[in-house]
């Protein structure tokens, strides 16, 4: 659809998802360059404010990625992230943002292929969805 290229920011935990992104690299699994990764130590470190600011800044999608439940390097940080994301969704809904714009994924350090697939899939999904309502104001 009219060459719309969604902009995605991904907050990935250092131990699993960031490592997965590295593994995708070392295994040379290509995926669209629409994504920008910010490294945090744990998905539990991701402040809701980061997500809100991301949309303010005009990103079309925000991906939060951490270790699988039970595998958190800090025992339960990802559980906290899960709880917060649920709350955050309600807020985004009020703001008139579609659920798909905030994505929470568990990707282990061994799942490089899955990381690439996730990005591919998310880009397609957002293409279907079109630009974020906040994008225009942002880029204006």
């Amino acid at each position, binding site marked *: 659809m009219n060459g719309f290229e969604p*902009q995605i*920011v991904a907050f990935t935990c*250092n*131990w*699993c998802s*960031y*490592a997965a*992104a*590295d593994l*995708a*690299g*070392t295994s*040379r*699994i*290509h*995926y*669209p*360059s*629409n994504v*920008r*990764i*910010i*490294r*945090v*130590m*744990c998905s*539990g*470190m*991701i*402040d*809701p*404010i*980061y997500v809100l*600011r*991301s949309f*303010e*800044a*005009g*990103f079309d999608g925000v991906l939060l990625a951490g270790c699988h439940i*039970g*595998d958190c*390097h*800090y*025992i*339960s*940080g990802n559980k*906290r992230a899960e709880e*917060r994301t649920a709350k955050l969704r309600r807020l985004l809904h009020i703001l008139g943002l579609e659920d798909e714009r905030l994505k929470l994924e568990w990707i*282990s*350090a*061994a*799942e490089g292929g899955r990381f*690439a697939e996730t990005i591919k899939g998310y880009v397609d999904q957002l293409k279907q969805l079109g630009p974020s309502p906040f994008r225009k104001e*942002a*880029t204006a």
Partner: protein
Amino acid sequence: MAEDKNDVKIGVYVCHCGSNIAGTVDVEQVTASAQERGSVAVARNYKFMCSEPGQALIKQDIEELGLNRVVVAACSPRMHEPTFRRVVEEGGLNPYQLHICNIREQCSWVHKDGATDKAEALISAAISRAYYLEPLESREVPVAPAVLVVGGGIAGIQAALKVADAGRKVYLVEREPSIGGHMSQIDKTFPTLDCSACILTPRMAAVKSHPNIELMTYSEVVDVQGYVGNFKATIRRKPRYVDESLCTGCGICQEKCPWKAESEFDCGLGQRKAIYTPFPQAVPNVPVIDPEHCVYILKDGKCGACLKFCERGAVDFSQTEKIVDVEVGAIIMATGYDLMDPSEIARLGYGKFPNVITSLQFERLCNATGPTGGHIVLNGQEPKSVGIIHCVGSRDRKYHSYCSRVCCMYALKFAHLIKEKIEDASVYQFYIDMRCYGKGFEEFFQREGSEGVTFIRGKPAQVTDLALSEEEQGKLVVVCENTLMGRQLRVPVDMVVLCPAMEARSDARDVARLFNLTQSADGFLQERHAKLEPVATANDGVFVIGCAQGPKDIPDTVAQALAGAAETLSLIDRGSVELQAATATVDETLCQGCGRCEEICVFHAPTLSSDGTMIPVSSINEALCKGCGVCAVTCPTGAISIRHFTRQQILAELEALSGVPV
């Protein structure tokens, strides 16, 4: 720390990484655009930033241009952050005034188009973040001068001995009644064919007698607390019902005990008593009583033969399990592997035909201490023909995609032993590829060829007792394609030996969680870096060696064991470790003392404390804080922030990425 932000001088260094980055990313362009940014004093690119000249470049600029921030755009921080932290420190900066920008793994290697644009955005973001970086003081804490080794196979034994020889205290914990592991079940070792027991048992004895090794067999680690240099492990010691200090290992109890059970050590081919040592050379040579089969325990008090006959009065049914705590600076995981149960692959007839056995069972048959005294006899029969099936559950995506690495070689060894013990026996090797990559392996393979072993290239589809011809009557028939002839083949044999995959321990997941480690896709414990940190793990101070990390032969296992010993010694002998400085910190002026941080932190780092005069405020025990940031996000007043991952730093990065001011 009062720093006038006008004085910020950032140096940006873009690495070509040969053509790994420069091949896809226009390094000149990204360097130029970095140069444009305010407070960037210098932007350079170089072939290999991590090389000596590259490092020198950075140090030089720090001195000559008075840089106070450094951005390195290169490979993943998980690769070279330590390297460059050292570099900036040597250059006279605080190591935390460095930011690594990942433009290789997460850019040049994964994108064809847009790689340059993305690299530009990432670097620009890195610059913005670097702007807010602050120097951090990383605290040193003393290291407990002892090592915990988990698992008493050849890996754990070798590691324990090396560490102990260096004069350090070692706690060696083994789940089974004796140390020795799988190697103690093996008869001969490839390719040299030296006797496994002859090389292993002296080491086992050495462990027992070593003044620096505290051996805890029949025990398991049930809890691990703390952090690198200061672990506290809780060990559960199961009751042996035999007093180790009194028992002389005379064996009379086993002689007299009337109750039998299947021998785990002989893989079900032989029997043992209810009171037993798994094998004669067991260390410690002190039996255990198996409560499942001991009638004294089952029918309270009936029997008690062992009690009567033990002159030392070592048998003690009043024993209960003990809980022991140990404090160690480092942990070595040597938990080994499980042999896959081939009955999963029903068509191969394991569990259906008594003459289909696993490689480990065959080892027991060959072994002089085994159920047949070393004679290859199964169900009273000496096989005149044996089929050895390779890759059972290995190299098969339905079971395990990986190659188990040892089967080709021990299969060759088996053939040799059969030829040696049974003259005119015919041996068939059913293989897909012969993988003889190790030192002396190929030579061994060649020798086998001359011993009249038949090699059939083909993965057997079935082991059946359905005879289609006279010569197949009463035999096991291995059905396969001889792929080199392109013809179906039916090979009648008396015995089939399966080479099942070596797989991760069935409880590997629980172990990984207990020690806060990660597993690779195949389920084995994952090393930190496949090449440069083969025995380190995601958890500082915990190391993994041997088959716990993946299938290996004995030489490789021992090499890793020694590597693990070296790692732990270098850690302990340093005497102290630097705790990572990126911990939580509380702005007491903002803290309202609500205590949410105290509730949510699983490491008990934050505590509310009050001097009585005012409302209690939270304070962080930095030794306990792991810097996960959960408290910072939970704190309703934003009083808590995580050093090196402050809101300011991350939002700055975000803003630069979006190219939109927020």
